[in-house]
Structures are given as structure tokens and as C-alpha cells.
């Protein structure tokens, strides 16, 4: 109960994170919607929409390449900006101040150290997940049993999530230590109780996303404007809830 309250207390910070995700949505949605609408106006696909639209219009010319480059660029900026925001949010989580302007300026001060920490923790994580992937891949491809790839995929994903939680724990602890000490400080130590709570919150946060995204997809595959809006809202609620629990898990370590 106590912890749940603390989760809800952080809703202002969560809103900032969520707004970033909403901005991302708009940056992708607006050009896509404009492009799609422009492609149906006045032609056959404005009357009858079939899969031909995908192949005859959307994948024509350099469209897929442009889209991929656009997405890659957005992803890069998204991650940079998130690290920047987190620089301020962590200070706020420690109760040092409130208010958006202060948050933004602290974000700028902490940005470089947070960026470095992100690199330091994400590189070994990627390498480790790669090794796990190779290993499970090897087992999957050498067994006559065709159920093996599925079993190995589950094993691979489970390990990846556990690794991710573990690294996220170290990464987050290091971010707090960095702020307290005003210099880069690494962390590999695990204290049982905080870690378990941290892992628990992280898992809830991911579950939020998965469940709501799933529901949203189910609604979006049906026809109807109302269902479309409902699908959109569900997804956004999922994202908000996910960030709420994520920040709560961080708060636990402050």
C-alpha cells in the first residue's frame, strides 16, 4: 500500500515521460496519416482498399528506405532525449526539487554522465544477450525436435528479460550514486530486498504494456471508428501505467 502510494505520487514525472511518448506518436502518426490519405485521394484505392494498396502504392519507389531511415533517426533522438529527461527526473525522484524548468536544467547538467552510464551498461548487456541468443540458437538448430526452436525462443526471451532487469538495476543504482557523488560511479552490487521489489515493479510495468498493447491490437483489427479510438486510448493507458511502475521501481532505489 505504501509503495503503491509512492507510485501514484510520481504521476507528474510520469506525465513528462508520457508526453515524450505522445510526441513520438504524433511525429510518426501525422506524416503517415497525411501520406496515406494523399495516396488514396482520387484513385482506385479511395474506393476499394485491398492488400494491393500495400504493394502498388506504399512499397513503391524509395518509400520503405525513407521510412526506415526516418524511424532510425527518430529512435536515436528519442533515446538521447530520454537520457536527458532522466538526468532531471532522477534528481526530482530524490526529492531535491520540483518544477519543470529546474528539471530541464538539471537534465542538461547530468546528461553526459547519464549517457556514459547508459553506454557502459548497455554494451555488456547486448554482448551477453547475444551469447545467450547464439547458445539457444545452436541448441534449437541441432535438435531434430521441431518444438525446440519455440522452447529455445522462450528460454532466450526469459533470460533476456532477467538480464535486462538485472542490468537495469545496476544501471539505475549507478545513476543515483552518480547524482549523490556528483561524479560517475558504477554499481554491480545487489541488495536482495530492494532488487526483488525493483524486479517486481519492472515486471508489472512490462505486463502493463504487453496487456494493453495486446488489447489495443485486438480492437484495432476490428472495423469501426469508436473501436479505433478505444484501441488508441488503451494503448496510451498502457504506456502511462507502464511508466508509472517503471519510475516507482527507480524511486525504490533512491
Amino acid at each position: 500500500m505504501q509503495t503503491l502510494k509512492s507510485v501514484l505520487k510520481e504521476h507528474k514525472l510520469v506525465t513528462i515521460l508520457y508526453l515524450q511518448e505522445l510526441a513520438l506518436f504524433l511525429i510518426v502518426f501525422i506524416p503517415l496519416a497525411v501520406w496515406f490519405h494523399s495516396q488514396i485521394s482520387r484513385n482506385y484505392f479511395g474506393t476499394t482498399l485491398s492488400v494491393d494498396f500495400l504493394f502498388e502504392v506504399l512499397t513503391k519507389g524509395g518509400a520503405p528506405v525513407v521510412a526506415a531511415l526516418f524511424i532510425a533517426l527518430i529512435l536515436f533522438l528519442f533515446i538521447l532525449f530520454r537520457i536527458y529527461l532522466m538526468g532531471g527526473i532522477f534528481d526530482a525522484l530524490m526529492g531535491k526539487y520540483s518544477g519543470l524548468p529546474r528539471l530541464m536544467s538539471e537534465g542538461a547538467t547530468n546528461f553526459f554522465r547519464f549517457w556514459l552510464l547508459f553506454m557502459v551498461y548497455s554494451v555488456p548487456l547486448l554482448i551477453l544477450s547475444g551469447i545467450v541468443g547464439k547458445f539457444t540458437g545452436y541448441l534449437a538448430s541441432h535438435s531434430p525436435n521441431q518444438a525446440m526452436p519455440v522452447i529455445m525462443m522462450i528460454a532466450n526471451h526469459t533470460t533476456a528479460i532477467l538480464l535486462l532487469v538485472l542490468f537495469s538495476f545496476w544501471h539505475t543504482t549507478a545513476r543515483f550514486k552518480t547524482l549523490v557523488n556528483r561524479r560517475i560511479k558504477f554499481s554491480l552490487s545487489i541488495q536482495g530486498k530492494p532488487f526483488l521489489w525493483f524486479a517486481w515493479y519492472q515486471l508489472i510495468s512490462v505486463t502493463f504494456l504487453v496487456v494493453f498493447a495486446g488489447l489495443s491490437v485486438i480492437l484495432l483489427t476490428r472495423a469501426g471508428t469508436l473501436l479505433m479510438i478505444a484501441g488508441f486510448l488503451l494503448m496510451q493507458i498502457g504506456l502511462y501505467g507502464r511508466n508509472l511502475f517503471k519510475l516507482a521501481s527507480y524511486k525504490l532505489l533512491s
Partner: protein
Amino acid sequence: MKKMILILIVASLPALALDYNISITLNPKGENISGTETIVWQNTSDTATDILPLHLYMNAFSNNRSVFAVESGGKHRGNRMDEKETKGFGYCKVTGILLNGENAMDTFRYISDIPDAESLGLCWKDEVTKTIKPDRTIGIIQLSKPLQPGESVTLKITFETKFPRVFARTGYWQTFFMAGQWYPKLAVFQGAKGWNCHLFHYNSEFFADFAHYTVSLTVPQNYVVGATGYLENETNTGNTKTLTFAVDNVHDFAWTAWDHWKVATDTWKHVKLFLLYPPGHEGTVQRQIEALKAGLSGYAELCGEDYPYKKFTLVDPPMQAAGAGGMEYPMLVTGMFPSTLLPAGVRIPEMVIVHEFGHNYFYGMLASNEFENAWMDEGMNSFATAYAMERHYKYDVDFPFLKMDGFDEARMGFASYKGPDFPGKAAWEFSPAGGYSNLSYNKPTIYFRTLENMLGREKFLQIFHTYFARYKFKHPTPNDFLSVVKEIGGEQAEDFVRRMLYTRDIIDYAVTRATSRKTPRFLGLKDFKPIPETKKDKKKEKRKYENTIIVENRGDFRYPVTVVATMKDGSRQEFEWDGCGGWHRFAFESMSPMTVAIVDPDRIYACDISLKNNAITLQPRTGSSMTKLALTISQFVQMVFNITSLSI
């Protein structure tokens, strides 16, 4: 009744002039087989011959300089031939030849070892570059005296075949074996035209005479075997067992052996069905059997006759041996089930099964020359696949938000083709830059669908029924098919198919202008007398809409087409245009404004190369779908980004 028909089919066949009796032992550790083969061949033509050419297809994988290896660049359907590891190479080595009982090994030579091989008249002149060497996919036995018409010859060949690591349809993976094109195989003698015997080309499939086969396979005791033909006998000796299969009227023999195979059986009418699947695929058995039955009934409807053999084996290879998947042999084909997680709405495995089964009609029983006319097998069969899939499943891809049938896939594939080729070419005559599969599979599929729409299903089926009934087991040529099309479908139908095969002619109708505006109020002198307009007149006058539609025929065929205009109040106006003169204008009045002008609304011309220009929409109706599509993609990006930033 059905049995009677079967007996009649078999009785009506010419006596077989070719007999294979093969006896081999599988050595799993060495990934090879060795044994003997007795070929009895009678020269039923009216021309003598002094050579016997043998296909040794497996030698395509014996080095990186074979015609196959060079043409493919070491790749087949996305699978790589591993050049660095020679253990993965394969070959078929002839170690002894007895010709009518006498040693003839010293007269045997590989084609690329013969200096003036072209004088043998086997391959086409431009078929092979002289720089490609050594290719050992053809072996020639020189006869001491010519074999006269009516005479027979008995060849006893001892041979060893080493399988490549599964690549291009055949090979091994661990203890799994898929044996296709694994034995020395006699070429086809066409009398005065000589031997029809081509090198093994990357794009090419096969051509052979119908024969009687007796094949004895000796495999380790714990192996499960699937093969062409009927199991006649099984004997056990210590650690091994010998299975003997025999069958009449097939032109190839394939088998598979694996100690992990699981077997499911079922029946369809008179046919006993076997499914060999790997452990872990238990959950897919029902889907695979259903697909096989969909193929059996779909092709019976299209070709007018049930599959005549009493046995059929479907092999579902393990994914590690995916290169063996999706291949046809008489009475045995390999399917492909990429993952047990594949949703039921993605019917790729079903499509592959229907397609490969279907080859038993075009490749198996009609057996045209696939070297030279791939479309007669792959093209007709791809159409038939889409036809049978549509009859049973309706769609190949079937989700609430995405539906796609085989004809959609083929049209979009073909629409992407910009090259200079057409289907009526030999496999190796296609530009190496690509186009072979698009033209051999996709183009005939949508052009035949167009023909079906133009003629009506009944008449169209009559063409296929007649063609199959007349030419089964007779190796028909393109002209045989065209003559049936002309006989039943008429001259225009024949012209359409001919141009599909030998030209780049396309169909493309387009609406290039559509306008709808209120008839302007009359201004001017009525009967040259100025009459002041009264208010009453204004009110009374209900102004109509003036509509114009301009349609163009941008394609090469002058066929009539329907043009439909839909008005805002739901009313419709239908017009016919003969398709001649390049373009045509339709003008008409309506009470409600026109919202859509569309040419060929029922998609009779399924091969229309561009759908986009088939209509002009004055008021788009698909706007909300577009918003939804954009929404779905944006939310997906949102979700992926959120997961990517999991620990930030």
C-alpha cells in the same frame, strides 16, 4: 466405378519402353549410397542411336565450377552451398558399366571431358559457356554399334552417390536424407530430333520418360522410409532392413530416410495418404492433411480426373533441412512448415503442399519438358494452386485486417517485373538478373485467371479437362496446349495465351478523367428573345449533374471492358467500351453527383498491371481505414520504442 476408370487409364497406356531396377544401401555415416542399377531401354522411335546419355544431376554439387554452381552463385532459394567445406559437397560417381553383359566402362565419358561435345547434339548451342568446367552432370556411353529402332539394350551400372548437405532440393542433415535425382538417369530420346538431354541448370527442373521402377533400399533398422511407388516387400537382416518399392508409369523416383520420422496416415477416396513429419510437428498434422486433401479435390475439379495412383506421400522436412522442402516427385512431394508458431491465418504451408501435390498432374502425369518449357509445369501448376486454394480456403493470408489470395500475390509479383523476358523460354535463356520465377509462376497464374474470367468457368474448365485427358502420360508441347485452347476457347483465347507466353503484352485499363458538376443555369437568349427569369422558374428548376468519364486502354489487348459510375445517392450507371481507339469519353447526366468512376469493376482482367489507375474517386471512402492504418503503425512504433528504452 472409380476402380474401373483406373484400370482403363492404366490399360490405355503404351507399353513402357524403359525399366529401372535399382538396389542400393544407405550408409548414413558417409552420407552416401552405393549399389547397382539395371536399365532396360527399348528404342521405340524410328531412328537409330549410337550413344546413351545419362543424367548425373548430383554432380552439380561436386564442385564450384559446375554450370549449376556458377549460374546460382552457390545459392538456391536462399540456401547457400558451402564452398569452404567440401564434406558438404555431393556427387554421383559411375564405377562400372555392363552393356548387354559386356564391360563398357571405357566408353563412358563426362560431357565436359569430350572435346567436341557440341557435335553430339545434346544440349542447345548457346546453352553452355565453354569456360564453365568441369560440369559432370551428363555422362555419355558410346555404343559399339548403333541401336536400331525396336531394339533393346540392358545397362548394368554400379554407382556411388554422396549426398550434399541439404541444398537445392536434396541432401542430408545429421541422419536425415532426402534423395532426389540420386541415380544415373537415362535422357529422353526423341527419334529424329535426337536426345533431349540438357545440363543441370540453376533455374531448370527436369524431363524424363515414363518407366517401370523397382527400387530396393537397404537402410539401418531404425530408419523410417518414404518413397515413390508401392512397398512390395520388407526384409530384415541384422542391423539393416531392405524395403522394395515398385511402380509403373512414373518418370522419377525419390525417397527419404530418417530415424526420427513420425508417420500419420489418412485416406482420400481410393488414395492412401502418408505424412512423414519431424518430432515436434504433431500439432501441424491436421493442417497438413487438410491441405493435401484440398489439393486432391481441387486438382480433380480443375483437371477433370482424380489422382490415379493409390498412394501419396507428403514429406514435411525438418527446418534445418528446409532446402529439401517444396519439391515435387511422382507420388511423393516435400512441403514446408517453417514454424509451429505460424498462425492459422498464414496458409503458406498449405499453399506449398497444394502446389507440390499439384505437380503430380502437370510435372507427374502430363510431364512436359521442364528444361525447355518451365511454364507448362510451374505456370499451369501455380495457377492451379491458386485455384485449388481459393476453392477450399478462399485466402492464402487470412486475417480480419488483411486478406490475400494466390491471384493477388501473383499479380503483385508480376507487376514488379520490368525485364525483357517472357515465359516461353528455356530455363537457361532467362536473364540472369532475374525474372525466371516471376514469369514462370506469377504471369501464367494471373493470365489464366483472366482467361477463366473471359471465357466463364465452365468453358475454361473444359480446356483443362480436355488437355489433361488428351495428353496425360504423353509429354505435351506448348502447341498441344494452344491447340486445345483454340479448339474450346476460340481464336481470341488462343491469341491471348500465345501472347502471354511469347510477348510482353499487358492489360492496363485506366480512368484518366472523371468530373461531375451541376448543369449551369441557362444564361443567354432563349430563342433569341430576352425573357426575364422569374423567381418561380428558379425554384422549380431542379438542376441535374453533368458527368464525364474518360477511359484509356494503356495495354496491348483490345478487349471490351465495363465502366461503372456510382452516384452519391447510390445509383449506378454502367457502360461498355470495346477497348479500341485508345480512349473513350462517356458523358451522362444524373440527379445526384458522381462519386466514383471505375473501369473493370469486377476485375475480369485479373492481370491488369496497375489497379491504382482503374478508378477515379471524387469522394474517397477509405479515409478512416487510412487513419486506422497510420494509427496502428504509429502505436506499434510507440510500443517498440518503449520496449527499447526499457532500462533508460
